[in-house]
């Protein structure tokens, strides 16, 4: 089959690419657009390391076709820090030592951002169930959950202050 021409908005920038019809969005991001922050841990949607936001929806980019990005808005880990400033979640992950090897970290951050955009006051249980689609083998999740709760708390205070 012939390659397809696709136009998307990725992290706020207009992007055009060609891809094979059967090519996953994750492969497009990594191999065609050099956005290697999303990782392939399984290729079957089980580990969440390739999490991105597609038109406000959290998805595993390994389960989306590249051609499905046509006309859509994508957010990846590369777009999370704005104007050289880390997102509160990124900062809290560092402060809480919420990563060891770091391979799952981009997926967790994207997934946690999607949670806080819906619910800025999640309980520990809500955080744990929202992040249950992201596997981490290093940390036992303790410090990740604490970092997300702390970021949520800081973002709530920031909203009140504003």
């Amino acid at each position, binding site marked *: 089959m012939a390659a397809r021409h696709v136009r998307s908005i990725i992290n706020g920038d207009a992007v055009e690419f060609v891809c*094979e019809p059967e090519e996953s969005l994750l492969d497009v991001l*990594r191999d065609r657009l050099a*956005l*290697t*922050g*999303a*990782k*392939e*841990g*399984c*290729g*079957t949607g*089980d*580990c969440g*390391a390739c999490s991105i936001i597609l038109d406000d929806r959290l998805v595993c980019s390994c389960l989306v076709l590249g051609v499905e990005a046509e006309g859509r808005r994508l957010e*990846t*880990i*590369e777009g*999370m*820090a704005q104007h050289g400033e*880390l997102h509160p979640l*990124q900062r809290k*992950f*560092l*402060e*809480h*030592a919420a*990563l*060891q*090897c*770091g*391979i*799952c*970290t*981009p997926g967790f*951050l994207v997934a946690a951002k999607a949670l806080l955009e819906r619910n800025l006051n999640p309980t*520990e*249980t809500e*955080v*744990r*169930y929202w*992040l*249950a*689609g*992201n*596997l*981490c*083998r*290093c*940390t*036992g*999740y*303790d*410090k*990740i*959950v*604490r970092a997300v709760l702390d970021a949520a708390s800081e973002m709530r205070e920031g909203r009140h202050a504003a």
Partner: protein
Amino acid sequence: MPLDQTAKSGTPFSKVGTRPLRPDGLDKVTGRARFGADMTAPGMLIGRVLRSPHAHARIRSIDSSAAEALPGVKAVITAADFLDRQDEHRDILVNVMAREKALYDGHAVAAVAATSAAIAREALSLIKVDYEVLPHVIDVEAAMRPDAPILHDNMFTSGVEPRPSKPSNVAARYQFGHGDVQAGFAAADVVIERSFRTEATHQGYIEPHACLASVGSDGQGELWCCTQGHFMVRDISAALLGMDISKLRVTASEIGGGFGGKTTVFIEPVALALSRKAGRPVKLVMSRAEVFRATGPTSSTSVRVKMGVKRDGRITAAEAELKYQGGAFAGSPVELGAMSAFACYDLENVSVIGYDVVTNRPKQAAYRAPGAPMSAFAVESVVNELAERIGMDQIDLRLKNAAKEGTRAAYGPTFGPIGLIETLKAAKAHPHYAAPLGPNQGRGVACGFWFNFGGQTCVSLNINIDGTVALAVGTPDIGGSRASMCLMAAEELGVSYDRVRTVVADTSSLGYNDVTDGSRVTFASGMATIKAAREAVKKLCARAAAIWGIPEDAVVWEEGQARPAGPNAGAFPPLSLREIAAMAPKTGGPIAGHCEFNAENAGPSFATHLVDVEVDPETGRATVLRYTVAQDAGKAVHPAYVEGQLQGGAAQGIGWALNEEYIYGPDGRLQNPGFLDYRIPVASDLPMIDTVIVEVPNPGHPYGVRGVGETSIVPPLAAMANALSAATAVRFTELPMSPPRVLHALEARRMAQAAD
């Protein structure tokens, strides 16, 4: 080096023990960090590996002509493209690419490099392998039977006198112990003997193996890969390919988890061979299914333990027989399992026998404290049962028999200062141990031990002209070790943490470093860093002495400054590291410190774990309610990452106890090679994991550091089994304690009660 717990002349640590941000953190939260699969090269080809669908089969022939003829295919390789070595590299050679036989489902038999992944996949389907399928064996006990299918005609059990006359699947027999166990059992008031089984579990790192190889027609090669030891990758790959070691440079990428599973080679020599044949760079990345089918899980085991105790709680004798299958090649971690089985106890009479068994499964690889969790599962389960039988508290019985300084370990050595008793006391004093339990809930305790490794280590520390410090280490950073190295260098030099930058250097930049394993890095690379920094300090003092025109030994280093040693040395204002560094070009050139050594006296680490579980009587599902880890770290260099190691090990152990297992069909094929069916713990499965860091200094390290990475996975299997047993009044002796297995046990108990 003598123990110097306060680093220097009685002053407390100023950097070590703090919790600064890790130096590689920003890259890892922004997606910039480059892992194994994140690298590309001009002209790069994509490699793919063809794997055996059979558990055991003779390879009659391989016809790759159709694949080679496919447009876009640039190289096809088989075992013939490697040196046919008969030496100590034989097993790894055969594991990397099958020769006469495929020995397990997933064993590599050929590989291709093509201009695209799609063409590479198509090429694999065109390779014709003529297999003669042979009988196979998966289970460890079955593999030991006299009528079992034999994997290797040349395998005669070692450690048995006289040498067996027939080949078998038992590679080796090991024995440890001392005293008279029969007399010990005769003196006991209560003797318990039980058999246990554990299933094979995978390290489950989230990053599949990945590499990018490039070999030129001049025979020089470059390799980028995710590994726990790039020097090991270099040396083994060079041996299998017949290359000079000096012609292969290996760079370790950021590594997305290893836990022991990346301490050997799988695809790296294959990618190099493909690149050599194609004359272009080749990227080779495993799929998750390949990771499960073809890389090393740990052993499945069958363990029998017998222990005797007096009514006063003194253990009189202990005996164990361990059978570990390590996949298709010799080398299961049974020896380490046997050595560690009773290491937590001060025993007069102890005997352990271990059997290393081969089966038609992937070659096992080290998994965090290799061999120890399985034997601890059995021993710590029996210890709890002894406590129940004599009506003694489960921590008190352990305290009464705990190994301590001066205890002769079952595996030979006499322990120096160790922290087991301190962890038991910390667990007993923790509010967790006194918290009330509800219906269907139970509390388990277990202890664990790991030897800790030292090993070959080489670092280089350079003082830059602006007074910053460049530290090069050769041990891949798997969980924050660069932060610990920066802290130790900063501590010695008296500079701030952020003025030291630590990198993991490639194999051409440093002398040989053993792999990151055995919980050795913070201990060994840390000690090398301290030694290198002290050498640099000596040179900094010499420069100051030259500037001042006084003898070198009249200069001391304090708080990052050279100072005259006393009033007699002369009155000079101190010179800071930055000032001396700036003058270096005029005072003798670059200033650096180096260390190359073989680190010894790693100092073992002990832990005690507490866990509360609730078992749903309707479904058999066990929920972890609360978990506390108390572990001896000697000295916690970066406490946040020490806590992380304790929590991560506990979580992996919980997964091993409750869910994880390799499931084989009758055809010998792995049925669950994916994260959906091989279920590792997710966030909603676990509670917060409390930690108590105990610090009993290791006299073998200048700051008292002990490795912490591995011990934390040793107790959870037994702690969980003890908790489930307390919750249900059923003794669980097989892992995983998955809902169907627990429910079955609960129903059997209900039937038995109804019959009474």
